[in-house]
């Protein structure tokens, strides 16, 4: 481990994962935590719990704000476990001097986003810190939901089909562009609550094995984590991965791989092959028209890897994201 915490330790990539495993998993070791899923199961496997802290600059961005994120992000983690989001706690840490109007705007966004899943805020906390201690506002939320069908990484099997629910990297590209003050017309965050898309799949009894929302580290982090945890190969067909022209343009200009950029309203699924067409069909009908079959899981003799296949017959590794995301020099 390094002597100091670097930004890379929080970026959802390799350093982040190492910190979690080497420090937190070791210190707090127990079977529930060790499962390493987006949401933990307690109460005999009936209740899914997930917690997340939100710090984003700028607080308001095209397509949402920190309030939208704090609700959708945590409830999505609960939903990814196959649980219906029902309750959420909210803790605010606010910098002295923040405008009341701004806080009200964020609270209203949270209320609107809660209405999408019907989840309720059941507890909260407020702390105000002196000017300069933090940058405006941070929010921590913890979500709870009841299990409908336990989806988890251990259920992923060779032969599973891999589905991505929509065009990727919009949130990451949007925030990066806002920070760099690069105006790209039509580039908005994909931030949204995913439960309305997931409920129909679970209610239809489709054989969904695992789901992950592709937040920090993007789809690259999800597939690489799955490869490491399952010991299986993940083969992806590059041409099938949905990317909007706005994100494509942004990524090309800055030399950043869209696969490592965060999504906040797009998730990745491993499903039984015979059900993949039905899953995609339902996603299309429930607000995710770009959902697509992107690849399949297979066994491996060597080290489990994520491979991207081109339409012209070449292949390459999709590497676990690492380090801070930096634009190229030229």
């Amino acid at each position, binding site marked *: 481990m390094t002597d100091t915490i670097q930004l890379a330790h929080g970026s959802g990539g390799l350093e982040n994962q190492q910190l979690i495993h080497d420090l937190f998993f070791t210190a707090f070791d127990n079977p529930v935590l060790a499962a390493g899923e987006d949401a933990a199961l307690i109460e005999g496997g009936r209740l899914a719990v997930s917690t997340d802290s939100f710090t984003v600059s700028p607080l308001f961005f095209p397509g949402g704000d920190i309030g939208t994120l704090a609700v959708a992000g945590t409830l999505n983690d609960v939903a990814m476990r196959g649980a219906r989001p029902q309750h959420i706690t909210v803790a605010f840490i606010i910098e002295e001097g923040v405008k009341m109007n701004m806080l009200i705007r964020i609270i209203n966004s949270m209320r609107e986003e809660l209405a999408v899943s019907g989840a309720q805020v059941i507890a909260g906390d407020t702390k105000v810190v002196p000017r300069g201690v933090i940058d405006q506002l941070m929010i921590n939320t913890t979500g709870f939901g009841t299990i409908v069908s336990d989806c988890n990484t251990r259920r992923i099997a060779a032969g599973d089909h891999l589905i991505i629910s929509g065009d990727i990297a919009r949130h990451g590209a949007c925030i990066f562009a806002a920070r760099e003050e690069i105006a790209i017309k039509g580039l908005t965050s994909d931030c949204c609550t995913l439960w309305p898309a997931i409920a129909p799949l679970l209610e239809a009894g489709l054989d969904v094995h695992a789901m992950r929302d592709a937040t920090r580290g993007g789809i690259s982090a999800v597939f690489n984590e799955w490869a490491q945890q399952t010991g299986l190969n993940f083969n992806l067909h590059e*041409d099938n991965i949905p990317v909007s022209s706005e994100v494509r343009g942004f990524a090309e200009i800055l030399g950043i791989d869209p696969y490592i950029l965060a999504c906040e309203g797009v998730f990745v699924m491993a499903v039984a092959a015979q059900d993949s067409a039905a899953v995609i069909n339902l996603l299309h009908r429930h607000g995710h028209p770009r959902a697509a079959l992107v690849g399949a899981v297979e066994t491996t003799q060597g080290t489990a890897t994520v491979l991207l296949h081109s339409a012209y017959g070449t292949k390459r590794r999709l590497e676990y994201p*690492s380090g801070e995301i930096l634009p190229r020099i*030229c």
Partner: protein
Amino acid sequence: MKAADTLLQMVRSTDAIRAFAKRIEIDAAQLKKPLRVMEVCGGHTHAILQYGLDQLLPQSVKLIHGPGCPVCVLPQHRIDAAINLAWRPNTILVTLGDMIRVPGSQGISLQQTRAAGADVRYVYSPLDCLAIAADNPDKNIIYVAIGFETTTPMTALLLEQTQSKQLNNLFFHCNHVLVPQAMERILAAGGAVDAFIAPGHVSVMAGAKQYQHLAEKYRTPVVISGFEPVDLLDAVLRIINQVNSGVAEVDNAYSRFVKTAGNHKAQQLVATYFEPHDDFLWRGIGRIPGSALKLRSTFGDRDAEVQFPESCPAPTEEKPGNCLCGLILMGLAQPTDCPLFADGCTPQNPQGSCMVSNEGACAAYYKYRRES
């Protein structure tokens, strides 16, 4: 962004890629001996590995990776200088993104220097320094300028505006290097390369003309290429055809952006503010006369090396240890030849700069090709 989609569909067309690959296979069968083509630019190296273009070439055509990665060729004493400058009192150190990752001689990078408390920032456009300098009148802003011919005009423009706005708190630490001089060093050393794919963005600025003397003097084909699969395969095919015809000339396969004379305005800006640096040390390659640019002496009051000499250590030749970066930058070894590759040298714990820089050949192999 629809225009971007249309352009990308053309230059990444599966049919076109397959057609070029087929044609290369047919024409390469006429080669009398194996052909070693060096792509000079790190951006090309990454594109080749990202798209797997080397997998489409016959065995007789081998791509060799060159020194065109500005961070890779920067010697440690210049990174040490940037770190020392960042620790000066009342200082904001600004540079381009890729630069903050590379460790100096003490194994510390600008990224770690920032985490330890120094004010280190990266910008996408050097002109962002103007706002930083205006917003922080009580601080010294030191811009660590880096890059080949592509980024030098931006530094020159920043200096021009710094002068016109009379921002007396903005200084420059210049690390701008030149491509043809590095190519000539490789050719003069001999033996590694039969032809060059010349950089695209560099040539947009400097023009196709800057390789003319190399093609003639060393009888070596030079084809300028863009960064897309179709561009690069087109460049390889043109090289094969030159070799088969016994020709060695400069050819422009990136004519949608590159002109023979280049960007005249950019060249004028550079000439106004910069002069050749007589004694620039390249990492792993050594000293190459006239291969870098420094601020003209009339702008000494802007030059961090003149204003803060105590922070800028003298050039020192580095001992490479087991790291093969020097040979890799010269085209004499491939990343996977290095005993440290992926085993003791990774992007998280780099031993050489070819692994740490985004544009480095080792980083590209690690990212796209690592076996385990």
